[in-house]
């Protein structure tokens, strides 16, 4: 006789698990007010503020401000989601035993990571739609290198996600929250994400070796029709180093 609880164990196919995990994490990320602020509201405010503000105070770049700022804000959005949001969410997953619990679900670590990355891309897609629309509304006229933008998105997400997980896997949840926000603010202001490296004078060269500078420069180049190999390589380097360190230090509980 088969009842409700008659044993019938089995794992779902990997693809279905990854999809389920990605959908769940994306939903939770967008449900959280602070994360939504970080993902959409701050980037839009930065974009509108910079474009309107620069007209008033008379700051000017070689190109129209909106053409410089929109790719920078897209890069900021990638950083906020794949670094800050991911680090905070993962820190609290550790704290509340979610990772522990998922550790006994038939979900491999690869599937869990796949789900997380899937959720990041879903949120980033949404951010690109919103920020892109606002940019176009402000007169943004890019000549997009699609491969360049996709590679920048991919490698930028990989680099910052690896660093975010490094933070979340080593510190307590509250410390992760504080550190992830602080790093985000510092890099937003002085990491050559939003503003081009050239705006920082001599320091600019150093900044293009930071993941933030490389991401910002790559996005600006890709939106201007170039394939930014050098910056993409820097991002790949950070992604590789971050992943190795994270895999060695991540504590699940």
């Amino acid at each position, binding site marked *: 006789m088969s009842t*409700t609880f008659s044993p*019938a*164990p089995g*794992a779902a196919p990997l693809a*279905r698990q990854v999809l389920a995990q990605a959908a769940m994490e994306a939903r939770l990320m967008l449900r959280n007010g602070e994360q939504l602020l970080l993902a959409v509201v701050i980037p839009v405010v930065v974009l509108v503020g910079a474009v309107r503000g620069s007209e008033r105070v008379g700051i000017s770049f070689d190109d129209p401000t909106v053409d410089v700022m929109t790719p920078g804000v897209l890069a900021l959005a990638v950083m906020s989601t794949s670094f800050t949001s991911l680090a905070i969410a993962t820190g609290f997953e550790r704290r509340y035993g*979610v990772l522990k619990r998922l550790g006994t679900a038939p979900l491999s670590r690869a599937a869990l990571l796949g789900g997380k990355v899937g959720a990041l891309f879903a949120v980033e897609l949404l951010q690109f739609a919103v920020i892109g629309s606002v940019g176009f509304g402000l007169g943004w006229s890019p000549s997009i290198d699609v491969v360049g933008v996709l590679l920048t998105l991919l490698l930028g997400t990989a680099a910052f996600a690896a660093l975010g997980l490094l933070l979340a896997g080593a510190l307590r949840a509250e410390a992760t929250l504080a550190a992830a926000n602080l790093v985000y603010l510092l890099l937003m202001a002085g990491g050559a994400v939003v503003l081009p490296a050239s705006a920082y004078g001599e320091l600019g060269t150093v900044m293009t070796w930071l993941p933030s500078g490389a991401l910002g420069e790559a996005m600006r180049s890709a939106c201007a029709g170039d394939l930014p190999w050098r910056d993409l390589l820097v991002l790949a380097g950070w992604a590789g180093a971050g992943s190795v360190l994270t895999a060695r230090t991540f504590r699940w509980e």
Partner: protein
Amino acid sequence: MSVDGLVMRYGDKTAVDGLTLDVEPHTITAVLGPNGAGKTTTLETCEGYRRPHQGAVRVLGLDPLKDRKELLPRIGVMLQSGGAWSSARPAEMLRHLSRLHAHPVPVAELMDRLALHECARTPYRRLSGGQQQRLGLAMALVGRPELVFVDEPTAGMDPQIRRTVWELLEELRASGVTVVLTTHYLEEAERLADRVHIIDRGRLVASGSPLELTRGGTVATIRLVLTQPFPPGAPEALAADLGPATELQVLDPVSLQLSGPADASTLAVVSAWCEKHHVLPESLSLGQRNLEDVFLELTGREESI
């Protein structure tokens, strides 16, 4: 499932000290012990969270670490606390976990059985302790496991819900699921378990069915209350009749308590004594050893139950 000579240490503290025990398939097995006895550590080693420092653990014939991929779909785990995203709602949490399994229990049915519809859309962080426990149990069951580990399944539940959970655990056993539970509630172990393992300081101190454990006690307790005060000298006379093996304690002018060998002759002596002194018992109660007495006898500690 078997645990063989398991040793687990935290720093220089030994949490599990050469523990050996077995769990028969399709039974409910309770692991009882005071706080810090090593219950949760043992369970977590079986669940593959920890690597044995010494000894070996086999679950469904598999090594929880080496054969993890094969084992995980076959077990269900209920943690003592947590395990869900704080903003996730019970319904979506269960739906999510069900999608990770091949043949899940229908979520709606599971929620029905554990009275989770009342809080289906409440974020996890706002659930009561009992609701969180029920969700935790549902999460352990959703994948139709062969073996479930439940750590303190009814802590913080009101009595009515506790009975519902007990019935559910009995139904699991009837459906062919093996249940391993830790509990602080001796009543729970006594009512549910086919087999009880009592552990203390990381060692197994007793094993058996609740009946086996409570039988064969050395001491019985008889409490006698009379309709009128004891005649002068009567308690002393009873003590003399019973002999030195039985301890007699006068509790108040009408009642006394006997502790002694558990045999029928004690009752016969008491009954003859009543007749001889022309007194009538208002009540005569025989103390049956329960699991609690066994537990206290073995662990010698009361404070931690």
